[in-house]
């Protein structure tokens, strides 16, 4: 291998690996269940389910790149979704509900930021606390009951955020695509992403060289909170419902998407492309298994296998083994 092709593999190894994995999975599914995977319907259904995971995983990619964790986002989704549902139910404006949800999410992120940056609690621990707190707050405030939001389907906000373009393409898949592009630029071309990469790579150096490390970390948690709130709104609209355990199932799937994608847990490196492909892989496995005629019980086992294999390949390609 020449020097340039070696550096290409070194730089883009994770992206190449995850792309091959997706291609292999899709091929297997197409061979195992051609009726399902060679038609358009399953892909349209993916377009309505996968964007939620993708968007959350993109947010978490920023956290991991900065060497931080956020375990609280499923609960931030619940409390922000509740803010949306309550405001909409009270005054009938979905747009106002969206604003309330985003404000709630950003404030919840501000609390995480304060605990991590201001008080100095490691983020993985601080967000275990806020994860319980916001879930508990949502359940207490809603008396443990779900809220029906059927009327929201009549609003312009609904059409704008989760309506079906030409009657088929879910609007939130386009929002997801647009945000992916924007977030690539923020990560790789904006000073915010740059500051996070340096915080994750060498915090001391970043501080010495005048990077606004604390501002970047506060911004990170507020960004993650706002993004979680946005996804919560999308789910409330799509399901026309809010329920107290909303978001709970996403925690491990979102983490899996980020790490299958090849973003390193050691911080300082991130791949937006890898995360998107990782979330697609996570999103198609269940349908693929069921379409192949296996029982749904198999889903978790296959998730596990794919995660183990892909993170092992990343570790080998990036040589993270400690000698």
């Amino acid at each position: 291998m020449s020097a340039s092709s070696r550096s290409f593999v070194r730089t883009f190894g994770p992206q190449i690996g995850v792309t091959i994995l997706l291609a292999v999975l899709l091929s297997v599914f197409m061979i195992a269940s051609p009726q399902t995977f060679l038609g358009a319907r399953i892909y349209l259904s993916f377009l309505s389910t996968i964007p939620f995971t993708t968007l959350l995983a993109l947010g978490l990619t920023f956290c991991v790149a900065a060497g931080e964790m956020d375990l609280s986002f499923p609960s931030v989704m619940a409390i922000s979704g509740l803010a949306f549902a309550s405001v909409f139910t009270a005054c009938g404006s979905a747009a106002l509900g969206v604003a309330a949800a985003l404000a709630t999410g950003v404030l919840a992120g501000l609390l995480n930021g304060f605990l991590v940056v201001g008080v100095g609690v490691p983020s993985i621990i601080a967000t275990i606390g806020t994860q319980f707190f916001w879930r508990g707050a949502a359940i207490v405030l809603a008396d443990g009951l779900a809220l029906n939001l059927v009327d929201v389907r009549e609003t312009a906000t609904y059409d704008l955020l989760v309506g079906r373009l030409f009657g088929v393409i879910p609007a939130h898949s386009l929002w997801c695509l647009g945000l992916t592009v924007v977030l690539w630029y923020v990560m790789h071309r904006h000073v915010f992403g740059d500051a996070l990469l340096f915080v994750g790579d060498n915090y001391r150096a970043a501080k010495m060289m005048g990077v606004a490390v604390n501002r970047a970390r506060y911004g990170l948690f507020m960004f993650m909170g706002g993004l979680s709130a946005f996804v919560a709104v999308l789910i409330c609209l799509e399901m026309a419902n809010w329920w107290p355990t909303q978001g709970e199932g996403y925690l491990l799937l979102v983490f899996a998407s980020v790490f299958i994608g090849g973003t390193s847990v050691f911080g300082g490196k991130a791949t937006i492309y890898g995360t998107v492909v990782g979330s697609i892989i996570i999103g198609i496995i269940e349908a693929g298994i069921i379409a192949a005629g296996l029982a749904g019980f198999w889903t978790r086992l296959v998730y596990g296998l794919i995660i183990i294999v892909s993170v092992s390949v990343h570790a080998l390609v990036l040589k993270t083994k400690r000698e």
Partner: protein
Amino acid sequence: MADTNPAVPLVALRRICKSFHGAAALCDIDFCLYPGEVVALLGDNGAGKSTLVKILSGVITADSGEMRIKGEAADIRRFTVKAARGLGVETVHQDRSLGEKQPLWRNVFMGRHRTNRLGFIDVARERAETLDILHGRLGLRGPGLNADAEVGVLSGGERQGLAIGRAMHFQADIVILDEPTTALSLTEVGKVLEFIGQVRAEGKACLFVSHNMAHAYMAADRFFLLDRGACIGQYAKSELSQEGLLRALMDAASGRVGA
């Protein structure tokens, strides 16, 4: 004492004090740095060298005292890294302060990217300037050595070169080098000393922190000796041989043992 230069000092510190958790790290430091001068900051571990360097580079702020940069009074409470750079103070820290997993261009512009009003980075321009530094200033050429290479692929000397090249690139008037020759090969040390000579020739000033007495004696015009947070003397090179300098430091150290 050697402080008789008639020019306006580039850096003038008066009665600078700094303590950490009640323990004094620096006490009543008076220090001047003149154009075209190289001063070596010497002292044992814990003497306060790093504290002084960090105050001058804006990483930490002094508790009290006065600070003038190029004749202008600076607010010691607001003397941040950004403020220091704005006044022409560039620092090469002991640990080189590089992000190993980041490309060279990000490292060169760390903390001060060339951006548009929205904060987006002009990557093409930063890459071009980085190549200028690599080829022009450092004379580094080789396969795989481009603006997108990661710092992790550089040798220790190349990293030190990059950190110094970065400081030079931003037109510093005052260059602070903290232990720049530690862990370098002989030729690399030669390059660093050559760079210091270049700073002097351009009429700029350099503050040079070192444990290596031979390097310090070779590079500096004046020696500023610290011990336990206080200045214990400063000497011009003409006043003192390298042995004399070593003796002055040893006396300070033995005084500490005796006390």
